[in-house]
């Protein structure tokens, strides 16, 4: 492979990794607070469809991504209510969210399937930076949402690890009883983290329908929500590592396109399996090497009940 195709491959890796990055960083936030949300796939789908519908209707893709974030937030709020206020089972609620989100998205998007998009997010050639050899085309000729995802990942990292609210967030995820004892509202922190997670998943979905595809079709996410959930473990619950991981997973997707267009005699169905198999492989490796102190929030998946202290 020559330099040009490697550059092209890496540029595609970043684009393909962007929806994962949004969703994974959001899920990191939720899980850091102790709430496991397996509904990422559903929230992404609802984000994708609401973003698309609003963009088609208003011809403004910025309003589109606002709507996508709102759509993800609404679904996440249902999950938060069930898991935090009602102390329901987080795994099953997340699955319900995926099923409900899938249904809602295709219900809402029924009349929008395959419509062309006039106002998509187009790649911007950043002056000066975009002209740097090699790095320019890899990093500086993407659409605005790619940069938004990086900015949000950095911002959420900063919030989680450099602010007092972030400290509360992590405390709630590690030891809610202790956090409660020092006056932190466990419920409020968890609600916020879960809802922000939903907004991020919604944005990830919108990236697919407004920049990547860019169109609406049922199951446009194709399991990316689940890959994002796996990415959280790969990232050891750290947004910075999630950036790296997303582009790695995006790279696998980019590679399958590359193999396809290069004319290798491999069935496209086998190529389509690759991202899922790769995810499983990575999950296994990371889990085997994972140590308790590596980041998994101790209270992840458990509802907090004051009376059970």
């Amino acid at each position, binding site marked *: 492979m020559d330099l040009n195709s490697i550059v092209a491959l890496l540029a595609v890796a970043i684009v393909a990794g962007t929806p994962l990055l949004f969703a994974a960083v959001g899920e990191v936030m939720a899980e850091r607070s102790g709430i496991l949300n397996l509904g990422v796939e559903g929230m992404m789908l609802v984000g994708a469809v609401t973003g698309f519908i609003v963009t088609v209707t208003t011809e403004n893709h910025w309003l589109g991504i606002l709507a996508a974030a709102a759509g993800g937030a609404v679904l996440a709020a249902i999950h938060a209510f069930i898991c935090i206020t009602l102390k329901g089972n987080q795994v099953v609620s997340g699955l319900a969210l995926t099923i409900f989100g899938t249904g809602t998205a295709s*219900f809402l998007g029924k009349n929008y399937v395959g419509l062309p998009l006039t106002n998509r997010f187009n790649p911007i050639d950043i002056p000066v930076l975009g002209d740097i050899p090699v790095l320019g085309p890899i990093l500086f000729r993407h659409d605005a949402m790619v940069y938004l995802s990086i900015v949000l990942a950095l911002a959420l990292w900063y919030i989680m690890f450099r602010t007092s609210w972030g400290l509360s967030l992590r405390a709630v995820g590690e030891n809610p009883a202790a956090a409660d004892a020092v006056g932190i509202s466990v419920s409020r922190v968890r609600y916020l983290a879960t809802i922000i997670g939903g907004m991020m998943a919604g944005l990830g979905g919108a990236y697919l329908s407004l920049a990547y595809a860019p169109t609406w079709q049922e199951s446009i996410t194709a399991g990316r929500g689940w890959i994002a959930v796996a990415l959280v473990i790969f990232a050891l619950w750290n947004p910075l590592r999630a950036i790296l991981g997303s582009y790695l997973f995006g790279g696998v997707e980019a590679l399958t396109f590359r193999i396809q267009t290069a004319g290798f005699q491999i069935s496209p169905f086998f190529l389509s*399996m690759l991202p899922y198999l790769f995810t499983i492989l990575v999950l*296994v490796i990371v889990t085997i090497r994972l140590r308790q102190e590596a980041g998994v929030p101790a209270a992840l998946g458990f509802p907090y009940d004051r009376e059970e202290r």
Partner: protein
Amino acid sequence: MKRLRLVRRNNESWLVKVAVPILSILLAILVGWIFLVLSGYDAAETYRRMIQGAFGSPYAISETIVKAIPLALTGLAVSVAFRMKLWNIGAEGQLYMGAFAAAGVVMFLGDWPSWLLLSVMLAAGFAAGAIWGLIPGALRAFWNVNETITTLLLNYVAIFWVSYLVFGPWKDPNAMGFPLAPRFPQAAYLPVIPGSRVHIGILVAVAVAVLLYIVMKYTRWGYEVRVTGESPEAARYAGMNVVRNILLVMLVSGGIAGMTGMIEVSGITHRLQQDISASYGYTGIIIAWLARLNPFTVLLVAFLFGALLVGGFGVQTYGIPYAIVLMLQGAVLFFLLAGDIMLKYRLTITRED
């Protein structure tokens, strides 16, 4: 000042256990109603047509049973795993692998006598599903790899595998270009009740339910599975072999889902094709939970969900997207989870002065 408060219950309430699932279904119907009205549809007419489509004639009822069979089996499959808090959400993929194995048996042993052929197909379906369940099971048992994610991801792999076969090496040259594997010989068809599509798979579903009930309630292994589900620490402390139990549970769970795949290709499609399952593997999760993992209740709930699927297909001609079925399913599960708080708590009004 009067305040509503949740107070812990000391005993389980039977009334709540039964009332919550029923109320959940009713509330989900209400949510669907609101969605339909907001989207400009006639909700009453939609529901009337759904009920008509699912129960309106002997044929409609038979079709509801046809859908209830795979739903009952996948519901039973996941309920085994859920008992041990193993989140097998890979029944969909296990079903596809079972269907693949059963179709493979027909390719090589198609001229065997029917009863023998069908038995081998069923065994192959079970084995293939079991292997597909054992992969994430082993990863979980030995290295504690999160089985929720791996079972789900393997669904995609299994479905792509079947697609590969029916688009590629197993494609029937006489199918006019459609991605279908060759039609089975008559010997590989499950016997049906004449005049309907209801096949003998219904007996398999009932038998599996009875068997699971007995195993879970009366055997030592069933006891171990329940204890491990309640508290893995206690199970380990009591000297139970948790690794072995995880492997066995995933084997049984995947195997039942694999048999479902065999039953669908042998009883309904009569060939391997892409859309063997209308998301039965996922719907089975909801059914298992709604039935509170009780095998006999799974059969009953599967019948209701069979009706929902058939009714949902029916109203498509009335312009209602099939997605309404998924929305109703998700909503039922939400309400059920929300209502379950009433199992642990009761609502009281206290006076605060």
